[in-house]
């Protein structure tokens, strides 16, 4: 029982890390209907920028602010160069464009900052501590707190600010929002900037766990089943989906792994998501779209 709890909690907490990546996806998908395949590349780009700036002697907060500024600039460039010319194209063209963007960002990040694996120490000790006999990782708890904080900030931002309201309007109906005079391009730039900031946070946390390296770009793929479970358009869904995926994949690895031969972590979340889709095609918290397939 104790072992089960330990695996479960470890899974839940690592799921939070997936949620962080999924969050960036949801933000962009919600506001612009673009399935941003490049989120993982943005995570890599952000983390590499931060580490490299720090290496070049910037203080920690300076590096943080500078990389935040760079992510904002990147969002503006992406909106201007990639999204604006592709307005009104079918979703698959936009998906393809973000796949192209992935190559661009990966090349850019590693071309500018080098492709050596870099360590990142956030100064949070990664020693497990004991809660009634169950070992819990301190670092994971910290990550969970950060994720919770981010979601709270985003929720408040969406709910109570003028820009947030514009975002929700755009998410609801592009054309209606446009005809009300909401500047679509500004909204997109804001959303990509927010996604960039989320990518920076995710990059720092993942980077200090795995080292800042190319593999960061691949964690996007772990966020996809999270999205399916939670629904593409729900911030809360990203969190809950992340928890579900994290917990189930660890439990599956521990309990089913020995039977099936190990390494099932890679596909188990997808199959879970697939089965889930058969029951509830719009995800846990996704908007119900009434169309027959």
């Amino acid at each position: 029982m104790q072992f089960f709890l330990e695996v479960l909690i470890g899974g839940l907490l690592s799921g939070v890390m997936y949620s962080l990546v999924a969050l960036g996806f949801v933000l962009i998908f919600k506001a612009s209907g673009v399935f941003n395949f490049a989120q993982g590349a943005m995570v890599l780009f952000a983390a590499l920028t931060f580490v490299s700036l720090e290496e070049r002697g910037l203080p920690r907060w300076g590096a943080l602010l500078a990389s935040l500024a760079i992510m904002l600039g990147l969002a503006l460039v992406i909106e201007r160069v990639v999204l604006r010319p592709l307005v009104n194209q079918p979703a698959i063209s936009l998906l393809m464009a973000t796949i192209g963007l992935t190559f661009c960002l990966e090349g850019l990040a590693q071309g500018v900052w080098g492709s050596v694996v870099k360590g990142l120490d956030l100064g949070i000790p990664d020693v497990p501590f004991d809660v009634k006999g169950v070992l819990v990782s301190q670092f994971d708890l910290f990550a969970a707190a950060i994720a919770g904080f981010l979601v709270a900030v985003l929720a408040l931002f969406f709910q109570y600010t003028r820009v947030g309201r514009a975002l929700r309007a755009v998410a609801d109906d592009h054309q209606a929002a446009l005809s009300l005079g909401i500047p679509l391009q500004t909204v997109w730039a804001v959303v990509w900037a927010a996604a960039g900031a989320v990518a920076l946070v995710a990059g720092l946390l993942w980077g200090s766990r795995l080292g800042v390296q190319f593999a960061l770009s691949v964690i996007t793929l772990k966020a996809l089943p999270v999205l399916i479970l939670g629904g593409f358009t729900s911030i809360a869904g990203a969190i809950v989906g992340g928890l579900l995926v994290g917990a189930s994949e660890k439990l599956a690895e521990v309990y089913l792994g020995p039977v099936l031969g190990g390494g099932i972590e890679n596909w188990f979340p997808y199959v879970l998501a697939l089965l889930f889709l058969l029951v509830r095609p719009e995800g846990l918290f996704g908007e119900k779209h009434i169309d027959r397939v």
Partner: protein
Amino acid sequence: MLYREAGQFKTSYRADQRIFPILQDRVVVGALLLVAFVAVPLWGSEYLVSALLIPWLILSLATLGLNILTGYAGQFSLGTAGFMAVGAFAAYGFQLRTPAVPLLLAFVLSGVCAAGVGAVFGLPSLRIKGMYLAVATLASQFFIEWLLTRVGWFTNYSSSGVINAQPMVIAGLAINTPPRRYLLVLAVVATLALAAKNLVRGRAGRAWMAVRDMDVAAEVIGIPMLRTKLSAFAVSSFYCGVAGALWVFAHVGSVDPQAFDLTRSLQVLTMVIIGGLGSVLGSFLGAGFIVLLPLFLPSVLSAVFGTALRPGLLPNIESFIFGALIIFFLIVEPQGLARLWQVTKEKLRLWPFPH
């Protein structure tokens, strides 16, 4: 002036239903086939044949497969490489366990295996569509990759996981030199491309296109959704499966699940989009573009920058330019290279007059 159908009257239904209704098209296609089947094997250099043409043709076949699914039937898939892997391993298995089965039949059977697997993984398409489906097909990609790596029966219990493909023999003739392998690939690809061209203008293809354009309307006019969608998945996977088998036997020569990872799926998807959705010609153009680009980029880059670049930078610049070109193409011509060819044809028809 040159490319004009004026004066070419169709006097029979047969003539009206030809694949290439215009004489000039038939001449060009005939000439191309002549060059491909006769001139290239005779005079083509080994580099041209084995490093360019063979991978291009095989990837064109896979692209054609995905194009049937995505371009004609409107179902996204990110699991192409998974189905290619099924074909590759099935062909290996048939050659290994049933040596009596001739090679070509083994290829066909491996395609059939991939079709079966594809139909199973196509089942979610009956419930979901769009991006959700794309993500769902990723499940097939990862699951198949895992299954082929983990279950020893598929790899014949080889310890390294990488196995050499058996030498190819057709009717006592060893297919071991680049020209012979090229001819085998070319024959298979040409046959399947012709079949695809006929398929998409027949009943099946029209049903797929109806589903793509509006599924509710398609169902209302009596197109069975289940059969149509699953047949699209099956046919598409068949093509991918044969492409996977060819890739392993005629190109790389070793059976390795790593050759069919997600990158391959994305690569094939890129080829479909760059080439043009819903176009057989586009599949070939798109595959050509993506195969040729990485071969030309390094030489172009080193010609431009010389040796001024620090080592290790080049692959990153390549990656950047590759991505930028994809975006550029999408912005300039969202409907792909096939559309450019259409525009050219329109222009040629009027030439030398502007209108």
